[in-house]
């Protein structure tokens, strides 16, 4: 792996200052910074060969379509999907999950059917299902978690019933960092012929994701959380589901033949890509995946585990600091509170020190309710963070405690 100063030099934003202090960016769970190569790739689309995809007979459209389809191939290979037809570009994880909740719901969900989620879900993997359940008269079933923030697997098994139609779970909790046992969850569901959607928003960027060996039916992730542009995301789905499910949106490019009487749909994956997709974003995402592959995903995991362990030790040494989410299996995210200091106060003061953290409920209010709190401070790290930054955070946190006590 490149050394840390070389890696950081790839990300122009990391060298900026904020309030005259070096920026320490610990909000990677919300969005990641972009390497220069991604910015160049997006810029190149618009300066070099921009044309709408799959439409023109002209060279610009051809070049853009080719780059866009190359990006699809990069995504396919990155998550080891079997076919390019199984890769749908969306606006992000939220877009992907909404598409499945709608299309799957329309096709397969009836009154009294059940959908299993976990307590750890982000609102993006709750609300679309809730909306679908309200429409169809179906019911949400929720897997509880223990005090470490780990799902109770036995309770999950008990929730599986003859009425369960789908299980939708995150690969990792955005609020606590817990990695869920997705392979075991999928195995148990498949034993009863129940498909599983994995929300990979917090999983894709932290290690090797192989949808074939995971055997999930759906996998959703966002480009901007894996060093790519915003407004682009991916839905992987097994071909069987994409063939059977009705499209979620109608529009251009997703059709085969349109008359006012009836419309037939285009082949996969275009059936699920209505309108002009954010193709520049997709091309940028393809470049971001190359960047991550070049760095080495196994190496990224090792480095992020080192950061997690170091930060956990450093923060645990602070008197009065409580960590929420103490699983042995975590992504490099730490959620915490200081004594009785409000998370907003902590976040505000850290911000003034140049340290960007997230505060609040992290769009995961049921997790907060489970722990009887109304928010946390979240430090979400990635490979470009350093041990020195963690030291500065530790000192900063101690200053916060002094200020408020």
């Amino acid at each position, binding site marked *: 792996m490149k050394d840390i100063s070389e890696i950081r030099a790839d990300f122009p934003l990391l060298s900026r200052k904020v309030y005259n202090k070096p920026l320490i960016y610990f909000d990677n769970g919300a969005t990641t910074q972009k390497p220069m190569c991604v910015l160049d790739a997006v810029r190149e689309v618009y300066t070099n060969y921009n044309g709408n995809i799959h439409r023109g007979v002209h060279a610009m459209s051809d070049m853009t379509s080719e780059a866009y389809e190359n990006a699809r191939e990069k995504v396919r290979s990155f998550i080891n999907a079997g076919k390019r037809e199984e890769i749908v570009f969306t606006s992000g994880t939220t877009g992907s999950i909404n598409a499945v909740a709608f299309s799957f719901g329309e096709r397969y969900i009836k009154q009294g059917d059940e959908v299993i989620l976990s307590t750890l879900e982000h609102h993006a993997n709750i609300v679309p299902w809730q909306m679908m359940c309200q429409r169809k008269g179906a019911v949400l079933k929720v897997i509880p978690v223990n005090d470490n923030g780990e799902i109770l697997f036995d309770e999950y098994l008990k929730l599986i019933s003859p009425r369960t139609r789908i299980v939708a779970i995150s690969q990792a909790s955005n609020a606590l960092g817990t990695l869920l046992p997705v392979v075991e969850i999928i195995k148990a569901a498949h034993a009863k012929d129940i498909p599983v959607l994995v929300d990979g928003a917090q999983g894709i960027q932290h290690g090797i994701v192989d949808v074939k060996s995971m055997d999930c039916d759906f996998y959703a992730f966002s480009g901007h959380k894996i060093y790519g542009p915003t407004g682009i995301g991916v839905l992987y789905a097994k071909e069987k589901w994409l063939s059977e499910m009705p499209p979620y949106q109608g529009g251009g490019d997703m059709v085969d033949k349109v008359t006012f009487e009836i419309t037939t749909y285009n082949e996969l994956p275009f059936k699920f890509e209505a309108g002009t997709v954010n193709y520049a974003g997709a091309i940028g995402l393809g470049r971001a995946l190359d960047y991550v592959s070049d760095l080495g995903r196994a190496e990224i995991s090792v480095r992020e585990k080192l950061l997690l362990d170091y930060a956990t030790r450093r923060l645990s040494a602070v008197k009065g600091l409580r960590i929420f989410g103490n699983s042995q299996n975590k992504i490099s995210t730490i959620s915490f509170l200081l004594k009785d200091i409000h998370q*907003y106060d902590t976040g505000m003061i850290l911000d*003034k020190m140049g340290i960007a953290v997230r*505060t609040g409920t992290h769009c995961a209010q049921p997790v907060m309710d489970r722990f009887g709190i109304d928010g946390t401070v979240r430090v979400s790290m990635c490979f470009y963070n350093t041990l020195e930054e963690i030291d500065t955070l530790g000192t900063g946190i101690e200053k916060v405690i002094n*200020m408020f006590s």
Partner: protein
Amino acid sequence: MTINEVQDIIIDEFSLFDDWMDKYNLLIDMGKELPVIDPKFKIKDYLIEGCQSKVWLRPEFDGKIIRFSADSDAIITRGIVALLIKVLSGRTPDEIIGTELYFIDRIGLRQNLSPTRSNGLLSMIRQIKLYAMAYKARGQSGHDV
């Protein structure tokens, strides 16, 4: 003292400090001085919900002036709440409606009033003005607006 005179005093007070840390310490102290809202009024009726922090605000109108009591669960928000109470409580509805709040910007706390912060402060100011307009329209006492 007029509302703007009070605003100017606050600006002077904060201008003594160059360092942001000192400003925030002053704010924290002011938050501590805020007379606490009676816990029995810390109820949904008086709650202004923000994603980041919550604010409770209760008006009392005696037919002439409106007195506000308020609180927040975050101390920095509480400090700003204290400043707003200092400026806007004990004023007539007309005074409140006609006030332009410039002090927050001038003491360098503008970011706290950004709508994206969702800390309850912006909604609090809006709510104070709404109470003032409602009392003005009704021109009678009571706090059951």
